[in-house]
Structures are given as C-alpha cells and as structure tokens.
C-alpha cells in the first residue's frame, strides 16, 4: 500500500504508543487475570444460562428497537410539526445520559409503584414487573430506540426528493419502491450495532437484573469478583464475553455500519404519500408514544430530583469533586489519545478501536488491580483505574468522530506542509488541531459525559473514600433513600449536560476554519 505524503509529516509514534497501551489494557489485563487465576475455570450451567440470557436480551433489545424505529422514523421524516426539532435533539440525549439516571427514571414510570402500573391497577389490569428480562430489554430499548430512529431518519432524508416525485408521478408505492430497499440496506447494520452495545451492558443488568435468571455475562463477571472472589471464573467469563463480542464484530464488518449522525436531521422531505387519515393517525401516534417514552422518565428525574435536592447528604460534595476529576482527566487523556490514533490510522488502529468494544471493562479493571495487588492496596487506586477504564471505553467513539476530519486535513494540507518543510509538531499544532476543533469538542463532550456517569469498575472496588457520584446514587437507591437518590440523579444529569455543552460549544467558538 502506498503511503500518503501525510503519513510522513504527521508524527506516528504517539499513535503507536496508544495502540500498544490499548492492547496492554485489554489483552494484557485479561492475561493478568488468567495468570493469577492459575487455572482455567470451568463454566457451570448457571454461567451458560448467563451467556444465553446475554445473547437473548441483546437480540430482543435490538429487534424491538429497530422494529419500533421503522414507523417512528418514517413519521418523523414525512411530518412537519411543532416541537419536531426539539424531539430530534432529544433523540441525541441518551448518548450523554448516565445509565443509572435513566434506569431510575424508568423505574418511576414502569416500576411497581410507577405511573404505568398505577394506571393499570386502577383498571384492574395485570401489572408489569420490571425486574428481570422485561426490565433489561425495556432499558436497552430506551437507550437504543433513539439511535435506531436517528439512523433510519437519516436514511429517509438521504433519499433524493426527485425519487418521491418520480414514484408519485408513476403512481407507484413509496413503501415498495423507496422505503423497503432503504430499510434493507440500513436495518442489518442498525440491528447489529445495537446488539453489540447490549451485549456488554452492565449497569442496566446490575440494577434491573434479578438474580441468576437475569444475569448478563458482564454482571456474572462482577459477581464472580465482588461476591465469590473467584478469579478463574471471572477470567473465563471474560474470555467468553470477548468471544461473543468478536463473533458479532465479525458479522458487523460484513455490513455497512451506519455512521454516527451529527446534524441535518431537522430537514424534512416533501412527500406525496401518507396523506390519508389513517396514515396521519398512525404517524401521530408513533411520534406521541416515542416522545412520551423518552420525555416521561427524564421529566420524572427533574420533577422528583428538584424535590430531593434538600435530602442530599453532605458526602455529595466530595463525590462531585471525584466525579469531576475522573471526567476531566479521562477527557484530556481520551482527546490526546484519539488525536494520536486518528493521525496514525491504519490497520493497527482499526484493531485497537474494536478491542475496547468487545472487552470487559470490569476484567480490565480487575487485571489492573491484580497487577497492583502485590505492591499496594489496590483499593487506593480505584479512581486512577476508573479514569483509565473510561478513557479506554471512550477512545473508539472519540477516534471514530475525529477520523474523517483528520483525514480531510491530511489530504488537503499534508502535501503543502511537506513542501513548506513544517516540523511534525508544528504541523499538528498549527494545521491539524485548529481544523478538527469542532469534532474534537464534540468527542470531548461525549467522553466527559460518559465518564461522569459511568458506574463500572468503580462499583467493584470503591469504598466511601473513593465514592463517585454514580456510586453514591447507586448506594442511596440500595438503602432506599429514594428522595436523596432522585436529588443525586438530577445533579448527575445536570453535570453531564453542562460538561457536554461546554466542551461541544468550546469546539465551536471561533471555529470558522
């Protein structure tokens, strides 16, 4: 493969260092767990049912999300109504919404004493029980339906309006001539991305999973470490997790993965179909139900969170401080690492970007703890380890967001920079960075929000001395201090939003390049 001139000018070794670190943190830590375990544990029947549950819930979550997305995306693409752009913006919210906050919101709607069950009870209908398979799927649909809708709306809007005209003038069926081919192209990729996301789900299963019958592999890893201290089983489960992830990733590569969508969704195409009363009612219902499904849980967080602010314990302050530190340091590390990866490019980077998606962050965390164990008390390192894990998990997304812009800069300015004899670092500082500010700000905002709300490895080891905001919230929920938990949820949500907005906007200030 011929090297492009840009490869000569952009420094390549930082990217190589990052790739090496990613390999060490994913495969190296797994090896450390296997080594410490000393033996290859055997999987029991309960472990196998965890594997089955993981695959089954991911399959159903992905299927429900894409099936529901079809009518909603069509309605959004062909209707113009008040609040449409607000709804589209809202579809992006689950990307920065902490999982634990959303789960609390869902409990308020679908839980035993939630709004839905109160209505069902008043009509003497059977109530919904949220713990277990139902709840896990429900929460995953909440997070991934918006993703599916965004992918499909983009698909609808990418159809040139001339085709609708042509179809209309031929008197053909929009469904058969335009929509079905478009869906055939996009649905497999959308399905598989959601399937992958749901495979490694931890927090949802931690809170809504109910015992051995509703345990994901990631949760089984957590239990093997935290409850049994059975490292051999944790290591084997981690290998299983990676194998499942790798199989699905191979499948994904065979399809077109939809690119993350950043804008342009608030356009709508002029269409001639769907004017019948029936179609209008159908579209209206789809939009209304989706809006309620997304808005009500968030509304509950704000409504009950404001009331709960007074019940917040004093330890919220240090928890906020720790979470901010974790978030900001992880964001700084991720931004540098993602730029380095994007500048390097190539196959090694592609592999390094895929690994964190299929690896278990819990096992990586345990592996790091085991390396620290002979030297020091690993519990003291809970926060640095959490920072590393958040960086690792955010890195694939951040790199993916940066890559197109970095490639464009390399293409447009690489030769010129070589001709001018710019040094590598001057090139990065003066030419590359100013031109990728917008995607860099967006990536930093996403990373900051994700790291702020993450309850992964911190749940394994932290005590009160390392309590972050999501962990504090989880413990408040566990000890049934519900009002305080609502207050903490609101604070957490607010901080995530503020961090995201500041960084995303920060990337746009004076970004006229």
């Amino acid at each position, binding site marked *: 493969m011929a090297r492009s001139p840009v490869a000569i000018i952009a420094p390549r070794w930082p990217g190589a260092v990052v790739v090496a670190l990613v390999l060490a943190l994913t495969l190296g830590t797994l090896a450390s767990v296997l080594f410490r375990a000393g033996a290859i544990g055997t999987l029991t*029947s309960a472990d196998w049912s965890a594997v089955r549950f993981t695959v089954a819930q991911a399959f159903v979550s992905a299927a429900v999300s894409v099936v529901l997305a079809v009518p909603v995306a069509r309605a959004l693409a062909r209707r113009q109504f008040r609040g449409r752009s607000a709804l589209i913006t809202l579809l992006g919210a689950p990307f920065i919404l902490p999982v634990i906050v959303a789960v609390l919101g869902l409990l308020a709607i679908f839980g035993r004493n939630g709004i839905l069950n109160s209505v069902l009870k008043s009509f003497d209908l059977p109530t919904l029980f949220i713990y*277990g398979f139902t709840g896990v799927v429900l929460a995953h649909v909440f997070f991934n339906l918006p993703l599916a809708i965004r992918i499909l709306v983009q698909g609808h809007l990418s159809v040139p309006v001339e085709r609708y005209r042509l179809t209309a003038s031929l008197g053909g069926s929009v469904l058969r001539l335009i929509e079905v081919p478009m869906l055939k192209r996009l649905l497999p990729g959308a399905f598989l991305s959601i399937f992958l996301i749901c495979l490694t789900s931890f927090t949802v299963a931690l809170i809504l999973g109910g*015992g*051995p019958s509703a345990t994901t592999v990631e949760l089984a890893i957590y*239990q093997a470490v935290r*409850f*049994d201290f059975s490292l051999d089983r944790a290591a084997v489960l981690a290998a299983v997790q990676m194998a499942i992830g790798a199989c699905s990733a191979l499948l994904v590569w065979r399809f077109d993965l939809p690119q993350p969508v950043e804008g342009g969704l608030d356009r709508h195409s002029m269409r001639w179909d769907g004017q019948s009363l029936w179609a209008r009612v159908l579209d209206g219902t789809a939009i209304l139900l989706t809006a309620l499904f997304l808005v009500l849980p968030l509304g509950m967080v704000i409504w009950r969170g404001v009331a709960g602010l007074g019940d917040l314990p004093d330890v919220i302050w240090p928890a906020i401080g720790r979470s901010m530190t974790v978030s900001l340091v992880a964001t700084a590390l991720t931004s540098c690492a993602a730029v380095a990866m994007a500048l390097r490019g190539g196959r090694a980077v592609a592999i390094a970007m895929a690994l964190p998606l299929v690896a278990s962050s819990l096992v990586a965390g345990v592996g790091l703890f085991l390396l620290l164990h002979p030297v020091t008390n690993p*519990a003291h390192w809970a926060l640095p380890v959490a920072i590393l894990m958040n960086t690792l998990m955010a890195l694939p997304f951040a790199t993916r967001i940066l890559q197109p812009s970095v490639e464009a800069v390399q293409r447009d300015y690489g030769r010129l920079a070589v001709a001018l004899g710019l040094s590598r670092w001057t090139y990065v500082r003066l030419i590359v960075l100013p031109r990728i500010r917008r995607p860099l700000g967006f990536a930093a905002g996403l990373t900051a929000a994700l790291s702020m709300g993450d309850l992964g490895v911190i749940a394994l080891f932290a005590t009160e001395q390392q309590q972050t905001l999501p962990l504090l919230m989880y413990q408040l929920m*566990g000890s*049934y201090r519900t009002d305080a938990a609502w207050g903490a949820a609101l604070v957490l949500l607010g901080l995530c939003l503020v961090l995201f907005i500041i960084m995303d906007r920060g990337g746009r200030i004076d970004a006229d390049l």
Partner: protein
Amino acid sequence: MKTLSHVAGLCLIATGALAETPVLTVYTYDGFNSEWGPGPQIETNFEAECGCDLQFVGAGDGAAVLSRLKLEGANTDADIVLGLDTNLTADAAATGLFAPSGVSVAYDLPIAWSDEVFVPFDWGYFAFVAGKDVAAPANFRDLAASDLKIVIQDPRSSTPGLGLLLWIKAAYGDESAQIWADLADNIVTVTPGWSEAYGLFLEGEADAVLSYTTSPAYHLIAESDDTKTAWVFDEGHYMQVEVAGKIAGTDVPDLADAFLAFIATEGFQGVIPTTNWMYPAVMPAAGLPAGFETLVQPATALLLSAEDAQAATAPAIEEWRAALSQ
C-alpha cells in the same frame, strides 16, 4: 529559607497531631454503618474511651466484605473486620489474614463459643418477614406450593442469602435442589444485600422478605406498627451468629484488641437490639427492650458448624444458581 522551615515545621506539627489520634479502620457491611444502624452510636461510645478515631468502612453486604478483604490481601487498610458470620469464619480464617482475638467472655448465646479468632457480637434466627394479613406457610414445602411472592438475597454477597441456602441444606439435605426448583417461581427477585431486599418488601414488591425473627421488633418499636410478623417454619430456623475479627497485619494492634474487648461491653451490646435489630451476644444490664417479648421463638434451631458450613457452601451455591437460572 525561613518560609521553607516554617512549612516544614507545620508539616511536623501536622504529622504529630495525626500520630496523636490513631485511626482504627473497621470494614463492615453497609447496613451496620448506615446512619440508622449501630455504627454511629458505637463510634461515639468507643471514641469516648479510646482516644482514637474509629472509622467504619462499608464494603457491601457481609459476604462481599470478605471478598474485598481477599482482594486487598495483606495490604488491606482494615484493622478489624466486623459482620461475618459462622458460615464464613472457616473461609475467612483460611485466608491467614486474621489473628487470634485473645478475648474470652461469658456470652449469652444459644450455643457454646470456642472460636479463638472471631468474637461474636450479636445473633438471631433467619425468618421470612411478612404482613400479619398474609396466610403464613408452615414450612418451605408449603411456601413452594403457594402463590406467595418472596424476595431473597444473593448468597454470594449477603450473609442472610447464604444463611437461607444452608438453612434449606440443613433441613432437607439432598432434597434441597428440589426445594429450590419448587421455590423458583415464588422468588420475585434476588438482591445483592439485605437492605435492597427489605426495601423492596416495604415498597410492596413481595409478600415476604428473608430477614430475621427480630425484624418485626423494628416495626413495633421504631414505627409503632404491629402489622408485621415472622413466619415460623416447622423444620426449624437457621441461626446466625455475627462476628468480628482482628487483622494480623494491623498497624494498631493494641487499639484493635481494645475494640474486640469493647464488643462485649455495654457501650456496644446496649446499642445492638434497637439499631441492628438482633439479639445481643452479651445481655445488656437493662435486658431486652420492651417489644422483643412479642417475637416468635423457633422450636428448633439449626446451625452447621463453621467447617461443615464451609464445605457445604460452594456446592450449595452451584445448586442454587442452577435451580434459579432455569
């Protein structure tokens, strides 16, 4: 230079001040250290006589505390671990992290106490707690055949959860797998700790929750609510004796010994009945608070020895996971 020496002087004073109040770190389960649990009062009482800073560190439910200790190993910050029970002591002692307690006291326990490493601090009987309006089953078979819904705790993280496993094992032996298979449809959910399970029960998610025969005393005394009761099962009730132990590598051995000795005194035992809602290991001078006499008394007490419990635990957990994961 003058500034620098000032700073150095301040640092010396600061470390000196720290050295004057040694810190005793006690790992315990979350409920013990909650603001309504025994932790805060015991902290006040012990600090009044030790001239030290007693710090409780909550690390999940009882069994999870042991797991955490194994992870931290000899580098642990803990000086004392409080909240294991006799089902875990053999496993805990096998880590080699604990030192003999050196405490011998005449305990008011229903069993003779001969463990030299661990010190008992309270005890009770496991039982399902329910509203009095619910028809009580007479034993596990009755419960399994009924439509009653129960919440239980995970035996891998929680001492009541493990107690239930050994309770059924002690009562039914080889038939225990069948009992679990029959119980599976009665179990609403399995929580990691006691407080989550009890919270779900109080919110009306289940008819009954795995807790203790002493739990109704909380509702009666703290909330003046006499609508709760504990089901008496005719196969007997498994007993729990909660214990504390000293970490061999503690940097404050004298303080740790003082705390272990303090456990049997009024300042600790007097707090237990109305904060931990268990029977004290040594009866306080005032006796049990009014209301405890209303509690049900099991006819038969079941308890495996520490060694038998250790041997039974791993197979019983596999049996339980297999039965409930179907």
